[in-house]
């Protein structure tokens, strides 16, 4: 227990940080956060880390296409693709699109889901009925086909995944947060705030939102993995954005170039590992949050 007797009033940022309740005492969650940290740094400094432009077609000193080189050959760390592009640089830049998609999708899902959940659970009545019926509709939409259809209507772009997730996946977050809000709403201190004359907005922001923030984060961190996985699937199926390099695109490229037959494991194993690492990192963090939020599930 915190010995808050000596604790002074913490700053706003400190308070916000504390209400996120990062699961720092769960070793798996810490591992997950470390993996994220590595990928975030890689994404930020991708231009400095990657030796080549990932889309640049490379040539050997004797002006041949530098295609299908093995790792280490001619100084290409992970070798090159059939088109003569540097695999390592692609991996490094792939982290950029993965994180961009993951984080924006997670943000959208958590934001929309939290707002819908808060409004629905707090105000109840017809607002609740309408929002929850919308959630039911969203539950009825098969996710992957929806993304493909969306890609067909819009230009192929990595943002399709983000849009699709924002349109569909808020439902889980909203449902869970709504039920949490329903129980929080019946707490004595919420009634007390009303009797004290606080407005609905103030009650939501002050007394309810801080308690559901960890839940938003939980669903956000689940969404990161989902988004990256979905983007990879979409790209692999060929509905991805050909202009941007992502791990899914790399897998598709390797598949189309029959990398397996060429035994070019160095080509498709690294992006696969990266996807697994990021998705499982999200899972580890999720687990850490679950231990905080639902301690009785643990052990």
């Amino acid at each position, binding site marked *: *227990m915190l010995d*808050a*007797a000596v*604790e*002074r*009033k913490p700053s706003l940022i400190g308070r916000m940080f504390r*209400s996120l309740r990062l699961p720092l005492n769960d070793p798996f969650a810490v591992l997950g956060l470390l993996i994220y940290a590595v990928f975030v740094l890689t994404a930020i400094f991708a231009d400095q880390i990657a030796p080549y432009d990932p889309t640049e077609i490379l040539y050997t000193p004797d002006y041949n296409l530098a295609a299908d080189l093995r790792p280490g050959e001619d100084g290409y760390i992970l070798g090159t693709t059939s088109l003569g592009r540097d695999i390592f640089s692609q991996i490094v830049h792939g982290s950029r699109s993965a994180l961009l998609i993951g984080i924006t999708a997670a943000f959208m899902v958590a934001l929309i889901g939290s707002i819908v959940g808060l409004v629905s659970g707090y105000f109840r009545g017809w607002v609740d009925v309408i929002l929850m019926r919308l959630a039911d509709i969203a539950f009825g939409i098969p996710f992957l086909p929806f993304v493909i259809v969306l890609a067909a209507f819009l230009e192929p772009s990595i943002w399709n995944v983000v849009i699709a997730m924002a349109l569909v996946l808020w439902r889980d977050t909203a449902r869970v947060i709504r039920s949490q809000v329903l129980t929080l709403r019946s*707490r*004595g*201190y919420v*009634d*007390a*705030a*009303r*009797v*004290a*004359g*606080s*407005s609905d907005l*103030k009650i939501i922001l*002050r*007394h309810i939102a*801080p*308690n559901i923030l960890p839940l938003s984060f939980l669903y956000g961190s689940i969404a990161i993995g989902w988004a990256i996985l979905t983007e990879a699937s979409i790209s692999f199926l060929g509905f991805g954005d050909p202009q941007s390099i992502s791990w899914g695109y790399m897998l598709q490229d390797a598949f189309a170039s029959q990398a397996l037959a060429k035994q070019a494991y160095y080509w498709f194993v690294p992006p696969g590992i990266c996807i697994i690492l990021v998705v499982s990192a999200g899972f580890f963090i999720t687990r850490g949050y679950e231990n905080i939020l639902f301690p009785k599930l643990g052990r």
Partner: protein
Amino acid sequence: MTMQTSAPLISIEDARLHYKVGGALSALRGNPPVVKAVDGVTFTIRRGESVGLLGESGCGKTSMGRLLLKLEEATGGAIRFDGEKIADLRGQALKRYRSRAQFIFQNPFDAINPRFTIRQTLSEPLENAGVPSAEREARIVSVLELVRLPEPRQYLDRYPHQLSGGQLQRVVMARALILEPDFVVADEPVSMLDVSVRAGVLNVFRDVRDRLGLTAIYISHDLALVRYVCERTIVMYLGKVMEDGPTEDIVHEPLHPYTKALVAAVPVPDPNQSHDALPIGRGAPDPRNPPSGCVFRDRCPHAFDRCSREVPHLRQTGTRHVACHLFDRTE
């Protein structure tokens, strides 16, 4: 009594709070079961009067309190505070009402946000009432002194879990009193506390009420506690008023058969006290399915055939009002 002359601060006329229960499926079937938490309650409270709302859980006493504080909207009838219908209060008028009518919650461990310090908790009503921040600390300290929390400054930056139940309940009272209200509803404020500290909280309640001239409602199932703080008692059963009168008269000569049972059941700490058998049938009130006629008749030892046919209305009997056919001489 001198209060007879002063105008009522609160008047409740035929207040109702009916819930539909059983969800969408039974609603589709046509007639969803309705729970009548409050069903046609009428009474007035004079300025400065303290009234006990007495009854078992499910009798509607807490719902009545929540209606008065607009924590719940009545589904029928009218509640007037100082002449104004509280259902119509909006905007500034509602804000003013919020500063004049306050609630003391049953469970102090639940009524204070565990993330807030005592200072933050007590600042909230001041903030809402537009009290400038420079004045707030002085107000907080003085209200904590009022509820007899010694050396209040040491508590300001503590969190609720660092206070004992008795101290927390004083903070809850302080929050209710900080805007100097006219009217306070206390919902079993000592039921969660240890017996040894209950007396302290009750004494503070009594003293503060007298000192500020508050109008108060005290909700409880224990007549001994109600008697300690209220001059008048209203007995409720399944959403209806059974008896309403001066507490001392009710204690010494309960009229309604249900009141008789409540009086007989009051726990007494004296081992030499003789106890009569409880004059009440077993079983518990079922709010979904109340009996026809008088809602108490299935547990009443005196029930006769008229009780199942006809709902008894509150009628004046001596110093009080009773809703029981036994006291109706008109037929």
